[in-house]
């Protein structure tokens, strides 16, 4: 069983190895060719038989082959070789025979000598009967021997006759024994002669050279077939017209007559045939043997690759008469080789990609690290710098001479610039490092536009008209990141104002269909939500941007030209931030411009349309902007204009003209009186001035411009940054008058008749202790809440003037708590807080105040606790930790009078 299996295996293996060059099934179609498809391994079959078969396989033009053999060098050399070999073998045989002959001769001589000796010894003469039957008279050698023998016999006879002295019996005996010896000798002689004859006979048979030669040839041919029969090799000879004269191991279905006398092109069709023919011709022409790999793609045998060797054939006169051609099928090898090459290539590509990837990863890591570093550095720089600027601002409120004031103003504006730059860098690095999170809040686009323009108008020092235009189809409320949108608008507007000296700057809002760049992904908006695309144009009639400067306009730290940078200042980061923010929100920011005619910056953003029942706690922010004076017609108003007013306090800083003139520009609305009244009569909070604090982070510009004179009404305006307090401060005229001079500011704080109620929300005992001590030194006391929930409970029960709120706290963090407090201010109930899980017991003596409570964040200066986030959650300002006396004092000064 085991044996059987083994043989099976070997057979299988062998077949596999010896798979024929030609397809195996082809052979079956022709009976006479069947036998040529040798599938059996050569090793286990009879060599002789194989040779016979192989002989038949040879397909040769037998008439021409000998001719070819005779006319070509190769042919004759083969014959010469064979003849030489035969001659050599003959020589060898002759030599051997001669040696044998020599030995025989020697033996015979020895025998003769021995016989003579015997005869001599016994001196005996006998009647020698001439009865050697085998002796051949014709043989010269025998004759000679006979003669010698006769001579000897004569001699011995004579001696015997002479010496007759013994008895007859004795002699008789002697004669008998001698006769026996003679017989033995004769016998030996006869055998030798026989042998000699045999040798002669063999010699005769060897003497037929043609027969020998044929046999040798047969053997050589047999050897060739034996070697080649299974090899994937095809051989042939073609004449100089490339017609086959001879072919070995042709394709099995072709008959001899199909091939002989024809060219490749006539026999085969398909790819590679022409190439091989051309190659053969080339070799023929050049007269130099050559090799080439050709892939055939024929109908006959499919796709096969052959390594072809072609050599030219010359006749004896050195004329070309054709080519010899040998092809070896190397399809598998070529395939393997190509596979290997491909693998190697793939490998190389993969390696290259890998290293490229590693490089990219490395660069990315480096970049991230650099950005993180930048962010950290910026934070680290910002806090001391705010200290410097803040101190300088306080210093500017003291009595200074003119020169000192000038120096200080330079100092403050430079400080502000650096702060702005750092804020920009922070924003940018936040967007780039993906830390920037977008908030989805409900807001009113009209209000946003109006407030941005209002804010811009407030600090406007040029003779420009600011206008806003919103088409009717823009929804009243949409959902988006209002803070970022406002930031973009403010940035673009201030940019426009910066580069415009006369004419107007405006914002245009309209609804557009979904732009093509957003067709694939909906920027996070799913199909079920109604989204609207709003196009916002910020246009100006300014100096414009040359076309060649447009491409680098949105790049970081780039301005249209170095000249502009010098003339207009700025960080060059603003537009880059705008672009990044817009893209972060899934929109697009573009620009068109004409030199000396103006520029238009356009950004397209998707917004969710706010549904009326969607009252989330995010709502407070958009509404807090100016919910106190939400006039019904204001929400749908689509056009605002802010026109410059000559003779404002900015132009000369001169005397106070009148209450209505403190506003740098008249606010032109459909019901302008109402708004202006808002300022004049001071009946309610100022229109959206709280926003100034948010966007501008303080009201430094007023300090700058109005520090010279401090009429009480200006002070009043400044206090507008903190609307909830304003009513209070304005109603007490004594307080207002006492604020005439900045020097009394600190004493104001400490000796204030009415002790303000403060709340510190902080979980860290040490921080509480430190803050408490600082407050004490500043002359304040405060209540303490340890987390957001406690803060809400405290605010519910007590009316506070200011809250200092830690951002990161257990139970409920500062941001959430602030949102809930804002929601309460908006709605007048704590429903949102209760919904959020804060346990609130409402009682009748609850203080209900819709006044906006100033909430100051205390942040730890990390990316997660950014000032933007504080603002976005409804906080009014922030103090970076650790809290210092100076920071605290400054903050209280700003919010408590």
């Amino acid at each position, binding site marked *: 069983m085991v044996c059987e299996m083994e043989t099976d295996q070997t057979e299988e293996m062998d077949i596999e190895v010896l798979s024929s060059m030609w397809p195996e099934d082809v052979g079956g179609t022709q009976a006479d060719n069947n036998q040529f498809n040798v599938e059996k391994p050569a090793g286990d079959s009879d060599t002789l038989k194989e040779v016979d078969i192989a002989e038949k396989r040879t397909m040769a033009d037998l008439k021409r082959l000998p001719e070819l053999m005779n006319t070509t060098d190769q042919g004759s050399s083969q014959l010469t070789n064979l003849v030489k070999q035969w001659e050599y073998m003959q020589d060898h045989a002759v030599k051997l025979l001669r040696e044998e002959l020599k030995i025989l001769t020697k033996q015979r001589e020895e025998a003769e000598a021995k016989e003579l000796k015997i005869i001599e010894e016994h001196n005996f003469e006998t009647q020698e009967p001439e009865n050697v039957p085998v002796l051949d008279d014709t043989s010269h050698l025998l004759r000679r021997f006979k003669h010698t023998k006769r001579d000897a016999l004569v001699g011995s006879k004579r001696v015997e006759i002479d010496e007759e002295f013994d008895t007859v019996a004795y002699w008789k005996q002697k004669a008998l024994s001698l006769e026996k010896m003679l017989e033995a000798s004769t016998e030996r002689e006869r055998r030798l002669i026989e042998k000699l004859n045999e040798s002669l006979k063999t010699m005769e048979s060897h003497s037929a050279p043609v027969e020998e030669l044929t046999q040798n040839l047969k053997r050589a041919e047999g050897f060739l077939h034996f070697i080649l029969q299974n090899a994937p090799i095809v051989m042939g000879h073609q004449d100089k017209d490339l017609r086959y004269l001879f072919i070995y191991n042709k394709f099995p279905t072709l008959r001899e007559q199909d091939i002989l006398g024809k060219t490749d092109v006539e026999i085969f069709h398909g790819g590679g045939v022409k190439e091989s023919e051309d190659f053969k011709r080339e070799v023929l022409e050049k007269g130099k043997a050559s090799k080439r790999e050709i892939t055939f793609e024929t109908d006959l045998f499919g796709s096969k690759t052959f390594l072809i060797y072609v050599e030219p054939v010359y006749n004896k006169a050195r004329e070309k008469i054709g080519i010899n051609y040998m092809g070896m099928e190397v399809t598998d090898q070529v395939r393997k080789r190509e596979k290997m090459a491909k693998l190697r290539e793939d490998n190389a590509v993969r390696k290259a990609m890998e290293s490229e990837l590693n490089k990219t990863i490395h660069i990315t890591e480096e970049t991230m690290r650099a950005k993180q570093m930048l962010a950290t550095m910026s934070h680290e720089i910002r806090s001391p710098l705010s200290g410097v600027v803040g101190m300088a601002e306080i210093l500017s409120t003291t009595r200074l001479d003119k020169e000192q004031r000038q120096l200080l103003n330079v100092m403050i504006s430079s400080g502000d610039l650096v702060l702005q730059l750092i804020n920009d860098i922070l924003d940018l690095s936040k967007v780039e490092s993906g830390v920037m999170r977008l908030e989805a809040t409900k807001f009113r686009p009209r209000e946003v536009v109006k407030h941005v323009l209002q804010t811009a108008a407030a600090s406007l020092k040029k003779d420009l008209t600011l206008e806003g235009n919103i088409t009717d189809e823009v929804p009243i409320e949409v959902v988006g990141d209002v803070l970022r949108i406002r930031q973009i608008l403010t940035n673009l507007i201030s940019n426009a104002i910066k580069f415009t000296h006369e004419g107007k700057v405006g914002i245009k809002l309209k609804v557009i269909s979904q732009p093509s760049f957003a067709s694939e992904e909906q920027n996070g908006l799913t199909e079920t939500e109604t989204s609207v695309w709003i196009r916002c144009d910020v246009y100006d009639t300014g100096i414009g941007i040359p076309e060649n400067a447009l491409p680098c306009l949105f790049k970081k730290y780039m301005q249209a030209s170095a000249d502009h940078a010098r003339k207009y200042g700025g960080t060059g980061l603003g537009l880059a931030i705008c672009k990044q923010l817009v893209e972060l929100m899934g929109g697009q920011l573009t620009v068109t411009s004409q030199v000396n005619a103006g520029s238009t910056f356009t950004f397209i953003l998707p917004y969710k349309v706010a549904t009326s029942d969607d009252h989330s706690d995010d709502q407070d922010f958009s509404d807090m902007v100016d919910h106190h004076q939400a006039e019904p017609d204001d929400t749908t108003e689509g056009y605002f204009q802010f026109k410059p007013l000559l003779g404002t306090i900015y132009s000369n800083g001169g005397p106070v003209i009148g209450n209505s003139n403190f506003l740098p520009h008249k606010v032109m609305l459909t019901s302008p009186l109402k708004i202006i009244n808002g300022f004049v009569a001071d009946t309610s909070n100022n229109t959206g001035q709280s926003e100034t604090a948010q966007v501008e982070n303080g009201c430094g510009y007023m300090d700058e411009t109005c520090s010279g004179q401090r009429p009480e009404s200006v002070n009043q305006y400044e206090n507008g940054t903190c609307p909830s307090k304003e009513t209070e401060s304005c109603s007490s005229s004594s307080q207002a008058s006492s604020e005439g001079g900045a020097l009394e500011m600190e004493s104001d704080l400490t000796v204030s008749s009415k002790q303000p109620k403060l709340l510190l929300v902080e979980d860290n005992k*040490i921080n509480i202790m*430190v803050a408490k001590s600082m407050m004490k*030194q500043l002359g304040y006391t405060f209540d303490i809440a340890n987390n957001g929930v406690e803060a809400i409970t405290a605010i519910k029960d007590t009316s506070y003037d200011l809250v200092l709120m830690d951002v*990161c706290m257990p139970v409920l963090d500062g941001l959430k708590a602030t949102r809930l407090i804002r929601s309460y201010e908006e709605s007048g109930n704590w429903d949102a807080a209760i919904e959020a899980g804060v346990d609130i017991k409402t009682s009748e003596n609850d203080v209900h105040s819709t006044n906006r409570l100033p909430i100051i964040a205390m942040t730890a200066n990390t990316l997660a606790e950014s000032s933007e986030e504080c603002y976005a959650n409804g906080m009014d300002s922030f103090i970076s930790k650790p809290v210092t006396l100076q920071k605290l004092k400054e903050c209280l000064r700003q919010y408590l009078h």
Partner: protein
Amino acid sequence: MELVQMQKSLQDYTKSLFLEGVLDSQFLQLQQLQDESNPDFVSQVVTLFFQDSDRILNDLSLSLDQQVVDFKKVDPHVHQLKGSSSSIGAQRVKNACVVFRTFCEQQNVEGCHRCLQQVKQEYYLVKNRLETLFKLEQQIVASGGVIPAMELGF
């Protein structure tokens, strides 16, 4: 020891703490807050800090030794420690906490363990230094001297 000498060495010692970065300007804030009405303010705050930090470090060690580290528990502790160390001006503790928090964010247990060691080391350093400082101050007060005010701005 001579009183003047003691005062001098206290000043030098305090200065060295700042130069080594063990303390930063926030500590000066504390000293500023200390006045007649509150003569032991600094040592009170610092003692509170020690008590608080001992507890936090203990909690941190326990949390980090758990089979499965709950980073939601670890991070607030580090935040707390960072806040208080920053408040008293223990700069090196604070800096170590900043690194600690980044590892918390990455949920890197190994890194957290290393950071805890670092924080502890810095904490014991500042604790040791501050205790020495208070001892010096007490000696000066006991000898009837006045603790010299640190000038701002070195």
